[in-house]
């Protein structure tokens, strides 16, 4: 099987436009959540898009286009594509897709009738619009499609991209996740299912955690066939070592308390990487700040990692930016790679009152220097979605 390497990263998050800002600000203890939501306020749409480009893309596509632009430039692809276009794919996950477009057109339908529903509604709202936008913008003619698995979509997209390269369907894939669901219907719907934090505070693993805080954003990795990347002299940021995906087949919005499906995904990712829990130096948790996720994820880590679960540092990106739903896994993969490369593990913010039942090392509040002491810089990044979808990546920074 072909080796898969990461040669570029990009992110637009509530901590700013750019992957470096995500890492640096999170590590410094900055929280991008304001008034109970994680908005990408730093993004100025007109800086990145013409009038035509902007109105042809729902915000979820705009976010991933900006992140992809950064990732491609980071990979040294900004002048020209390094491979034949037909050998480069785009796989972009989302939880919901263009819900802002759906809501706006639904208002038009109700208030003005069906004849004024926009011809742009379908191309903007469809869940694969992000993947299509990236493919079209950069002329990528290999396999491109969207991945839909709620809050695991970004991780599934990267895992699917890994497989496409490993199997030889593509030499490179621009992979990631994106979400822009800070809309009235989405807020009301997540509140109705009792998932959102009434306090508006994201504090994963804290005794007082009361739900997730919704955020928006996008994360993108440029993944390449390792041999091809090295042959072109690319700078390799990380190696995508393993991927594991499982399902709970339990409940549409809740994991089993013992987190067995999540544990199986972690185990599978490590097996795929041909590594063991002893090899891990960091876990980027799903860590949503919901009572049930953080408990089940802790149980899953103990099951999958055994005694090592107690000594591996773990943190949740969602403590700093909220829950980016279908973008979360991709943004967190970016954050994981940058943390490993910087040898700085950003903290779980807001974790002030530990939950007595949750007894792992969640890196509370203060970033930690990663002392490798001769070990390799290997981590896992967990994502679990409504529907019982579990996906885990194993990444090694170079």
């Amino acid at each position, binding site marked *: 099987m072909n080796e898969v390497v990461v040669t570029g990263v990009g992110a637009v998050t509530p901590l700013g436009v750019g992957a470096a800002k995500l890492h640096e600000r999170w590590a410094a203890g900055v929280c991008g959540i304001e008034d109970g939501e994680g908005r990408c306020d730093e993004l100025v749409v007109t800086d990145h898009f013409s009038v035509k480009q902007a109105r042809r893309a729902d915000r979820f596509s705009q976010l991933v286009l900006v992140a992809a632009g950064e990732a491609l430039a980071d990979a040294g692809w900004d002048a020209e594509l390094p491979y034949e276009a037909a050998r480069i794919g785009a796989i972009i996950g989302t939880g919901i897709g263009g819900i802002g477009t759906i809501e706006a057109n639904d208002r038009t339908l109700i208030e003005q009738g069906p004849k*004024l529903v926009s011809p742009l509604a379908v191309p903007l709202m469809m869940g694969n619009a992000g993947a299509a936008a990236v493919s079209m913008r950069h002329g990528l003619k290999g396999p491109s499609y969207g991945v839909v698995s709620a809050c695991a979509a970004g991780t599934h997209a990267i895992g699917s991209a890994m497989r496409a390269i490993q199997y030889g369907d593509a030499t490179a894939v621009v992979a990631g996740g994106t979400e822009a669901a800070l809309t009235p219907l989405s807020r009301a719907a997540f509140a109705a299912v009792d998932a959102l934090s009434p306090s508006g505070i994201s504090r994963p693993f804290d005794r007082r955690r009361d739900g997730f805080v919704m955020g928006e954003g996008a994360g993108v990795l440029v993944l390449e066939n390792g041999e091809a990347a090295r042959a072109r002299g690319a700078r390799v940021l990380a190696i995508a070592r393993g991927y594991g995906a499982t399902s709970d087949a339990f409940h549409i919005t809740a994991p089993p308390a013992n987190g067995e499906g999540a544990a199986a995904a972690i185990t599978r990712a490590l097996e795929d990487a041909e590594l063991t829990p002893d090899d891990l130096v960091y876990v980027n948790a799903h860590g949503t700040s919901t009572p049930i996720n953080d408990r089940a994820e802790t149980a899953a880590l103990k099951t999958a990692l055994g005694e090592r679960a107690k000594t591996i540092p773990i943190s949740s990106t969602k403590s700093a930016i909220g829950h980016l739903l279908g973008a979360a896994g991709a943004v967190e993969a970016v954050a994981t790679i940058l943390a490993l490369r910087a040898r700085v593990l950003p903290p779980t913010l807001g974790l002030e009152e530990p939950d007595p039942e949750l007894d792992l090392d969640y890196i509370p509040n203060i970033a930690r220097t990663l002392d490798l002491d001769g070990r390799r810089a290997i981590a896992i990044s967990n994502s679990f979605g409504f529907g019982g979808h579990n996906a885990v990546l194993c990444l090694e920074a170079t």
Partner: protein
Amino acid sequence: MAEPSIDQIEKVITDSLVTFGADRDAISRDAELDALDVDSLDLAELSQIIEENFGVELSSNDVSEIKTVGDAIDIVAERAK
């Protein structure tokens, strides 16, 4: 609906094209829609706007005949009579 003047039709069409992202200075009767980067989705939107403003319903055949800004103005003026 009262018969619209050519100026009214021209204004609605020009404003629409600008909304779609065309450069206002590049718009003239002779300007080709292709050159203004106006595509089939823009024309579908323009058809909606024309019907909303002037009560003129353009078929997809009508739309496929429109090559320039002037073509669009003329067909609306003709049909709105």
